[in-house]
C-alpha cells in the first residue's frame, strides 16, 4: 500500500493532535502487537476512564445492565427508574430477538416501562412513585418478575430502590422483584453494568430452581444475546447434536431458565467480558465448571462443539457431533471458496464491544481477509492479553465501588462435576480465555476505546476494505467510501453464529466490499481522462 505508515509511526501519528496529557494516556492504549516465545503480548491499558471530549464509542453502566444483560429476557418487566430518556433509548434498539413458546406466553420485549421521573420527583424523591409504578405494572400484567434499573439521578437523590423492591416483592407475593444500582456514571463504560447485572441475577434469580430439565449432556450457554437470531442457530445446532440447553444468559431466555441455569453440568462462555462473573460464581457455589466457547466462525464452531463433546466424553455424542460438523462444513467451504475469489487479500479492522472485535477476525480469515487493526470498546486487559494477566490487573478508583460478591460453596448443592486435571486431560481450557492479542499477527495495531479522531486517521492511512464498529461510527466511515459493518446490530442482518451464520457473514462481506456503488462516487466529469468541454453561448 502506497505511503502506508508503519505501525509504530502510525501509533505516534494517532496521538499527535491531542493535548499532551491525553496523548500520553492514549499511547498506553495503542499497542503494536507482538508475540514473544512464551506467547505473551505487550501490556495494554484498558477499562480506564475515557478522556472527556475525545469522542468515544462508549456508553454507560445502565446500558450494560438493562440493555445488554437483562434486555433479552422476555418475561421480566424491566422498569427503568429515572427520567424518560434512558428507557426510551433502550426501547427495542438492541436486536436481541426472542421466540415466545406460545402465542400467549409472556413477551414484554416490545414494551418500554419507565417511572418518568420529573422535577418534583428529583426534589422530593421518587420512591413513592417507584412503589406505585411497580404496583401498576403488576396489576396490569401479572408478570413473573419485575426488574428495577437505576439511572443517574437515582443514586444522587437517595432513592433506596432495593428496599422498595424487597417491600413490593413481599407485598405482591409470587412476583420476584429485584433492583439494579446501575447508575450511568458508575464504572467507566457498559462493562460496569454487566458486572452489576451478573451480581444481582446471581443474588436474586439464579439457583431458585434446582430441578434440571430432562435430557442428557446438559449445558448452559453464558454470554450469548441472540442478536439477529444467533441463539436460534446455536439452539438448532445443539438440538441436532442431542445436547440439552438448560439456559442461555440471556438470548431468547425466560426467567425460568435463569432460575435453573446452575443445574447444567457445564457452562459454556461465549462473551467472556459480560458474563465471566456469573460463570465464576456458579462454579464457586455449585461446582459447575466453565470453559470458553466461540460460535463465531465455522472452524471455531466446530472446535467448540468438539470441546462440549470432549467434556461429556461419550462415544455416541462424539460421533453425532463429528457427523454434524462434517455435513455442515461441506456447505460452508463451498460458499467460502466462492466468496474468497472476490475477497482474498482484502483487509479489515474491527473496533467494537468486548468480544466481537476478537472473534469476528476468524470469519474474515475464513474468506482470506487480513485483520490490520482491532480493539475493544469496553473490555478489560484479560480480554486483550488473556486471563493469564488477571492477577496483575489493578482495579482503579472508578471500578473499585463495583461490588465483588463473596461466594462460598453451597453446603448442600455444591457438586463439582469433574476435576480441573481431568478437564485439562480432555483438552478443555478450564476457566481460561486466551484473549484477542495472542491470536492477532505481529505488527497489527491494537487500540482500546478508539476515538473518532483515531478512527478517521486509520481510515485515511491504512485504508481497510471494511471497517467494523457500531452505529455511531457507521456513516462517518462510509462517507470515506469505505463500507462499515456494524457488529453490534449486524446492520439489521445476521445471524452470523454457527455454520449457517458463517455463510451469511461471508455473503454479507462480499456484498459490502464489492457493491457497485462504491465505484460510482466520483462523477464521470471529475474522472481522469474524461474530456471536459467548456464553451460559451454566443448570441448570433
Amino acid at each position, binding site marked *: 500500500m502506497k505511503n502506508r505508515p508503519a505501525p509504530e509511526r502510525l501509533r505516534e501519528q494517532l496521538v499527535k493532535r491531542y493535548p499532551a496529557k*491525553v496523548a500520553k494516556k492514549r499511547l498506553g492504549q495503542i499497542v503494536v502487537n507482538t508475540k514473544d516465545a512464551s506467547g505473551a503480548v505487550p501490556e495494554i491499558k484498558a477499562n480506564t*476512564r*475515557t478522556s*472527556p*471530549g*475525545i*469522542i*468515544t464509542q*462508549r*456508553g*454507560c*453502566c*445502565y*446500558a450494560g445492565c438493562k440493555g445488554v444483560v437483562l434486555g433479552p429476557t422476555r418475561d421480566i418487566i424491566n422498569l427503568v427508574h*429515572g*427520567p*424518560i*430518556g*434512558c*428507557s*426510551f*433509548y433502550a*426501547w427495542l434498539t438492541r436486536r436481541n430477538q426472542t421466540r415466545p413458546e406460545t*402465542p*400467549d406466553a409472556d*413477551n*414484554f420485549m*416490545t*414494551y418500554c*416501562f*419507565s*417511572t*418518568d421521573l*420529573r422535577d418534583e*420527583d428529583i426534589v422530593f424523591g421518587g420512591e413513592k412513585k417507584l412503589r*406505585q*409504578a411497580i*404496583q*401498576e405494572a403488576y396489576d396490569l*400484567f401479572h408478570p413473573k418478575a419485575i426488574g428495577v434499573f437505576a439511572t*443517574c*439521578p437515582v443514586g*444522587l437523590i437517595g432513592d433506596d430502590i432495593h428496599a422498595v423492591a424487597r417491600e413490593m416483592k413481599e407485598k405482591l407475593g409470587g412476583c420476584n422483584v429485584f433492583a439494579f444500582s446501575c447508575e*450511568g*456514571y458508575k464504572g467507566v*463504560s457498559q462493562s460496569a453494568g454487566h458486572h452489576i447485572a451478573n451480581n444481582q441475577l446471581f443474588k436474586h434469580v439464579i439457583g431458585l430452581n434446582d430441578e434440571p430439565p430432562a435430557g442428557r449432556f446438559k449445558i448452559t450457554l453464558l454470554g450469548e444475546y441472540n442478536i439477529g437470531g444467533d441463539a436460534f442457530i446455536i439452539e438448532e445446532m445443539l438440538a441436532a447434536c442431542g445436547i440439552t440447553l438448560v439456559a442461555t444468559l440471556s438470548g431468547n431466555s425466560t426467567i425460568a431458565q435463569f432460575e435453573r441455569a446452575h443445574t447444567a453440568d457445564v457452562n459454556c462462555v461465549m462473551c467472556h467480558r459480560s458474563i465471566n462473573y456469573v460463570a465464576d460464581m456458579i462454579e464457586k457455589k455449585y461446582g459447575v465448571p466453565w470453559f470458553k466457547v466461540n460460535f463465531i466462525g465455522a472452524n471455531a464452531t466446530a472446535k467448540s462443539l468438539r470441546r462440549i463433546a470432549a467434556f461429556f466424553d461419550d462415544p455416541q455424542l462424539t460421533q453425532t457431533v463429528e457427523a454434524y460438523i462434517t455435513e455442515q462444513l461441506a456447505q460452508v467451504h463451498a460458499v467460502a471458496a466462492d466468496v474468497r475469489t472476490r475477497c482474498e487479500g482484502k483487509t479489515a479492522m474491527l473496533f467494537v464491544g468486548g468480544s466481537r472485535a476478537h472473534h469476528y477476525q476468524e470469519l474474515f480469515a475464513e474468506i482470506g481477509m487480513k485483520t490490520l487493526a482491532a480493539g475493544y470498546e469496553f473490555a478489560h486487559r484479560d480480554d486483550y492479553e488473556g486471563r493469564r494477566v488477571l492477577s496483575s490487573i489493578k482495579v482503579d*478508583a*472508578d471500578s473499585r465501588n463495583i461490588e465483588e460478591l463473596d461466594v462460598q460453596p453451597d453446603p448442600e448443592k455444591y457438586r463439582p462435576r469433574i476435576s480441573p486435571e481431568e478437564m485439562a486431560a480432555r483438552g478443555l481450557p478450564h476457566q481460561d480465555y486466551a484473549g484477542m492479542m495472542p491470536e492477532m499477527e505481529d505488527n497489527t495495531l491494537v487500540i482500546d476505546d478508539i476515538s*473518532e479522531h483515531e478512527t*478517521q486517521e486509520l481510515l485515511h492511512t491504512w485504508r481497510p476494505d471494511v471497517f467494523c464498529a457500531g*452505529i*455511531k461510527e457507521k*456513516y*462517518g*466511515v*462510509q*462517507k*470515506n*467510501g469505505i463500507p462499515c459493518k456494524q457488529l453490534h446490530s449486524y446492520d439489521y442482518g445476521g445471524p452470523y453464529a454457527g455454520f449457517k451464520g458463517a455463510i451469511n457473514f461471508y455473503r454479507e462481506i462480499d456484498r459490502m466490499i464489492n457493491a457497485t456503488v462504491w465505484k460510482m*462516487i466520483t462523477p464521470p466529469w471529475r474522472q481522469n481522462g474524461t474530456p471536459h468541454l467548456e464553451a460559451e453561448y454566443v448570441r448570433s
Partner: protein
Amino acid sequence: MALLRHTSSVIAERHALTINPAKTCQPVGAMYAALGIHACLPHSHGSQGCCAYHRSTLTRHYKEPVMAATSSFTEGAAVFGGQANLLQAIETIFTTYNPELIAVHTTCLSETIGDDLVQIIAKAREEGKIPHGKRVIHANTPSYAGSHVTGFSNMVKAMVTYLAEPARQRVRRINLVPGWVEPADIRELKRILAMLQIDATVFPDTSGVLDGPQTGSFAMFPPGGVTCEQLVKTGANSLTMAIGPTASHAAALALDAKCKVPFETVELPLGLRATDTFVQTLAARAMVEIPPALEEERGRLVDVMSDMHQYFYRKRVALWGDPDQLVALTGFLCDLDMLPVYIVTGTPDPTFEDRIACAMQGRVPGAKVRQGPCADMFLLHQWIKQEPVDVLIGNTYGKYIARDENIPFVRYGFPILDRVGHAYFPSLGYYGGLRLLEKILDAILDHKDRTSPEESFELVL
C-alpha cells in the same frame, strides 16, 4: 400472535407507570439544534450513555454521521462536580477537532448536582482553553423536565442569548426559527422565502449538515448550518418569524427582549391552512407580494385534495408525536375531512388541548386528546383496541400497533428509524403538503389493494 400482546382494551388509570412513551428527554433536542450551527460540535455534559444514546438515535434517523462529545462523568464527578471534565473536554475538543463553536447541553446528572455552566465556561476562557475567535455556548436541558422539544427550544434560545447582538441599524432581513423540522423542510422554507424575495437568516439550519452527499471524503463539519456571524447579526434583523410555538417561541421572545426584534409566532406551515397563515403573515410583515408561482403551488395542493377527497373522507386517524407537528397535522387532516380522533403527545403542554381544538374547529366531536404524564403509546393503542382507526400517523414505534391491528401507517415525526425520505423530501409548505398527501394515500390505497375482495379489486383509483 401479537407483537404487543399484553395491551388490553380495558383501560386502567395510571399515575406512576409510563408504558411506550410518546416523548423522550431534553438533551437530544439540544443536540439536534446545535447541529444546525455551522462547524459546531455539540457537547453532552453528563455520563457517556447520554451522548451515545442521542447520537445513536439521530444517526438512525438520518443515516448520517452525528458528531458530539461527552464529559464522560464517572462516580467521582457525580460527587465532586463535572468542572474538571468539562474543562478538559473543551481543551481536547478545540485541540483535536477544531470546531468554530462548542454547544454544551446539560443532562439530569449535571443538573442534579448543580454544575454552574456559566462559571465553568468562564473559567475555560480564563485558562486559555478556548482559542481566540472560538466560542462555547450552553443550554440547561435537564431530562426530568419537559421533553426533547423543550431541549431543542432551550438550545435555540441559547443561540440568541449568547450570540445575538443588538444593533442600531435595522437590516431588511428576517430571522426564521423553523422549529424541529427536517433539513428538507428547511430547504423548502428557504425556497418559499426566495419566491417571496425575502432575505432571511434561518436558525438553526440542519440542511447541508444532516442530508449530506457521499463524496468519498468525510467532513467532520459539513458545509451547512447557520454561521456564528449570522447568529450575531440576528439582533439587527427586522423581524423574527417563529414557526412551531413549542420549539421556537422561546428564541423569538429572547431576541425581542435582548435586541428588540419584533416577532410573529405561528403554527408549523404543514398542510393548506397553516401554510396559508405562514405565507400571509410573512408577506404582510415583509410587505411583499405573494407571487403567482407560489399561488400555483397552492392550487396544485388543493387540486389533489379535491381529486382524491373520497379516500380521505371521514377516515379515522390516530396521531402521536410532538405538539407543533400534531397541531398543524390536525388542521390539515380536518381540512381533508378526515377525523383525527386520537391524539397523544408525551410532551407536557398545558396549551395543547386548546391548540388542537383551534385546529379542529369543532369538526371532530368526541376526539380523545392527551398530553404530558402517562400520555403514551400504550394508552393510544388501548383507545384503538376499543374503537379502531383507519390510519396511523407517527414515528417508527407505531409499526408494532400497525402490524398487530393491520392499520395503514404513515411515518411522520421523530424518530423514523426504518425508512428514508424524511430528510430529503419536505412535509412543510404546499409542496410538502403534496408529499404528505401522497404518503397518506399510498398507505390507504396499498391497504385497500391488499385487502379488497378480488371482485372489487380496482384498476383505477
